């Protein structure tokens, strides 16, 4: 049995840091590899909060209800046992963050305050000001820094994972990463590897994600034999702020406080919104859904906004609609929505208390990810995954504030599973001879060939094209002919990729080679998402096909599994464990579709 265990963790967002903390605490050594300093990971973006059925509001909330809401919200595509374990653990997770010093907002009695979020009837979301993700990430960052000082965690920040090192039996023995300053490649030998690299939003060009969310590392693992599950399930948030560089989230609470969504009735109306009289405005959500109006569930709001823009009603002919708060007194808005309205003002320059906001749906979250079992183990022995990069928990649609908790749960579950595996792994064998050198060589050759390449294509323009195609055809509304065309487009882009020139003769700290590698990996993963969607002829959660508008449990109550092959992803389907909550029709229009 092994004594000094070493585990490599790729990614230092909530999931990666949660795992690192647990492994160090158990007395083992961690190599923590991250593209950005871990304190700058994408998790800082989360504003809304973290779910846990603590039931301090006397509403009779419980982990069992949290489980039910999560399965129902996910349109029953999630395996239920891990969801139950997460919901059971959630209150403890929130208490632990409390002990680590997270400044959660408080009630007048000094307890942690909870707010209500989408997809539940309970106050279940703990929050810290308007930046919960930042606060939770910092708490873990601090604890891991303590372990770093104690010599248990070795951080490699500014290193990008390129590939896994697999032995002859397809067992994961570590990984290869690249130093982003020197472009030096290095092998990281490990008894087990945990991937916690976050989501793949950048495949869609612009999204609400950080610029590090390329999904590149996960795609590399997939190309080496890791199964990727439910790739086609991509959540699109109805209200984001279109920007030249990214889409910034506008919280659902803006509609919660009375915000109204509209477009001018005259297509391309160039007037100032304030000069357009009410009878020339089309409040399309209120018109189509008189009962719920602007507060229809996320996926419906998203589809409707998308549709009016496709029909040419977008403001100034562009992909944007108004989200209007100007009928509400400015003081009320400041009191209730101050922090989030400041974000709009900071980035757009208009004050939403006086000028209607311009918003559009934005790619937000990937429910799909690396296939894992109930202990967060992938199909490759020695490789585990946690956080947004794995596919468990959220099924076909994620509920607000459920991601942060799933990341921590995933990290807390992967850590002991990795230790357990590492204790029993056979390390003295000769199989690992030469495998690190061989993989290093293979990766170096890829770098060299990219550096040498000369051609007329610009990689950033190729990325723009990929993003546009994916956003237009593989997000809100999906048609099979367009999905097919998108796959052909991706193949064309892969072909053109061979003719990119990196335009950078100076290889020191160049971003051109890392980006080129990410782009290739994004193209590979884009095919998984697109073909997964093409193959699923039903509508479920975030996946909507007008030609197949209903959920089809008989045929598709199954996880999509993609395995890499040189020609195309090979898709297969796996039964979902629905042993705890019986599937029922998901219908928010009449309250929550409760079974007896």
């Amino acid at each position: 049995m092994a004594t000094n265990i070493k585990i490599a963790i790729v990614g230092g967002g909530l999931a990666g840091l949660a795992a690192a903390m647990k492994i160090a605490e158990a007395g083992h050594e961690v190599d923590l590899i991250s593209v950005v300093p871990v304190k700058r990971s994408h998790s800082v973006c989360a504003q809304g909060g973290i779910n846990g059925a603590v039931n301090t509001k006397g509403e009779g909330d419980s982990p069992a209800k949290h489980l039910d809401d999560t399965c129902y919200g996910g349109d029953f595509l999630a395996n239920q046992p891990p969801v139950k374990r997460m919901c059971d653990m959630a209150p403890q997770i929130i208490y632990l963050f409390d002990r680590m010093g997270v400044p959660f907002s408080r009630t007048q009695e000094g307890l942690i305050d909870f707010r209500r979020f989408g997809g539940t009837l309970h106050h279940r979301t703990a929050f810290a000001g308007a930046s919960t993700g930042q606060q939770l990430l910092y708490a873990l960052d601090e604890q891991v820094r303590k372990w770093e000082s104690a010599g248990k965690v070795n951080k490699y920040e500014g290193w990008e994972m390129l590939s896994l090192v697999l032995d002859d039996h397809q067992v994961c023995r570590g990984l290869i990463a690249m130093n982003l300053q020197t472009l030096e490649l290095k092998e990281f030998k490990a008894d087990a590897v945990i991937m916690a690299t976050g989501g793949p939003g950048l495949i869609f060009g612009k999204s609400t994600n950080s610029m590090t969310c390329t999904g590149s590392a996960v795609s590399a693992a997939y190309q080496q034999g890791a199964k990727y599950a439910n790739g086609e399930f991509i959540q699109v948030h109805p209200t984001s702020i279109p920007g030249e560089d990214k889409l910034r989230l506008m919280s659902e609470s803006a509609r919660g406080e009375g915000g109204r969504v509209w477009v001018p009735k005259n297509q391309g109306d160039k007037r100032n919104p304030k000069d357009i009289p009410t009878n020339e405005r089309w409040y399309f959500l209120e018109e189509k859904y008189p009962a719920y109006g602007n507060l229809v569930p996320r996926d419906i709001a998203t589809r409707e906004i998308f549709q009016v823009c496709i029909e040419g009603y977008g403001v100034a002919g562009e992909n944007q609609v108004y989200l209007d708060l100007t009928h509400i007194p400015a003081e009320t808005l400041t009191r209730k929505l101050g922090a989030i309205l400041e974000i709009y003002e900071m980035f757009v320059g208009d004050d939403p208390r006086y000028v209607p906001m311009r918003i559009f749906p934005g790619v937000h979250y990937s429910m799909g990810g690396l296939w894992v079992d109930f202990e967060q183990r992938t199909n490759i022995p020695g490789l585990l995954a946690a956080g947004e990069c794995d596919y468990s928990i959220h099924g076909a649609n994620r509920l607000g504030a459920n991601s942060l908790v799933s990341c921590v749960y995933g990290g807390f579950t992967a850590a002991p599973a990795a230790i357990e595996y590492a204790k029993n792994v056979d390390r003295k064998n000769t199989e690992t001879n030469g495998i690190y050198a061989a993989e290093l060589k293979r990766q170096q050759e890829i770098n060299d060939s990219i550096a040498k390449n000369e051609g007329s294509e610009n990689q950033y323009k190729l990325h723009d094209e990929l993003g546009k195609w994916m956003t237009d055809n593989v997000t809100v509304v999906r048609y099979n002919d367009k999905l097919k065309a998108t796959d052909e487009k991706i193949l064309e882009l892969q072909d053109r990729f061979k003719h990119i020139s990196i335009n950078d003769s100076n290889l020191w700290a160049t971003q051109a080679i890392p980006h080129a590698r990410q782009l290739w990996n994004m193209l590979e993963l884009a095919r998984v998402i697109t073909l997964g969607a093409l193959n699923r002829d039903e509508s479920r959660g975030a996946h909507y096909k007008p030609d197949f508008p209903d959920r089809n449990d008989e045929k598709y109550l199954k996880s999509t599994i993609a395995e890499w092959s040189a020609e195309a992803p090979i898709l297969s389907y796996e039964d979902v464990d629905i042993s705890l909550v019986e599937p029922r029709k998901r219908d928010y229009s009449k309250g929550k579709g409760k079974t007896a």
Partner: protein
Amino acid sequence: MSADGHIEKKRLENPPQTIDVKIKRREKLGGEQFWETFSVPYRRNLNVISVLMDIRKNPVTKEGKETTPPVWDMSCLEQVCGICTMVINGRVRQSCSALIDDLLLATGNNVITLEPMSKFPNVRDLKVDRTPMFEHLKKVQAWIELDGTHDLGPADRMSNEQAQERYAYSRCMTCGCCLEACPQYYEDNYIGPQAIAQARLFNMHPTGKMNMDERLEGLMQEDGITNCGNAQNCVQVCPMSIPLTKAIYQTNRDITINKLFGWLKK
């Protein structure tokens, strides 16, 4: 002022056709710095990041010379990760929240200058290495000592006011603006406002307080709190509006009290 009492933001009335972006570049650590200017077509709603993205798609200078794409760091683009900090028109700030219209309005011309922060090792172009700042956090033990991460129930109750006061300090994203602006800080001679404010954050916490001595110890070294010259530049540039001078004041007071009564504990 409009009819509804709202002071409308001043708009850029006659935007230029193009903007000139002057970038202070460096090929590698220790290399010479040099300037290059790029001409970028003006559009509404540009920020510094999107201008840099434009340039990287077509890295040709204003004079028509082909060059390398500029290197800079970016991640969240929402001013919470702190990575994209640089000196823009002479002022240190995050490039994601630097809107081109505002910059042009402020200067009245069409030139924007971008420089890397000057107080940290300059890796290449606009990219710097802020590792020292994370080391400072270790020195002040900016964390809470736990008995373990097993379930021990919630922490003590806390008033919302105290939680909010801590929240204000806890928003620090280690961006380095305060150090860039501090006249006392050069070549990592001083632990700086960031670390002092983080020490304060944990000294304020009921559990964190128990390790106050160790934290103050970290601030009493040669590079410690006495280096502060009270210029107060830090609070003015901090993008998260962290009460840095207050933290420095209160920590100084804690140190004095500690010195006076420290012998009692021995």
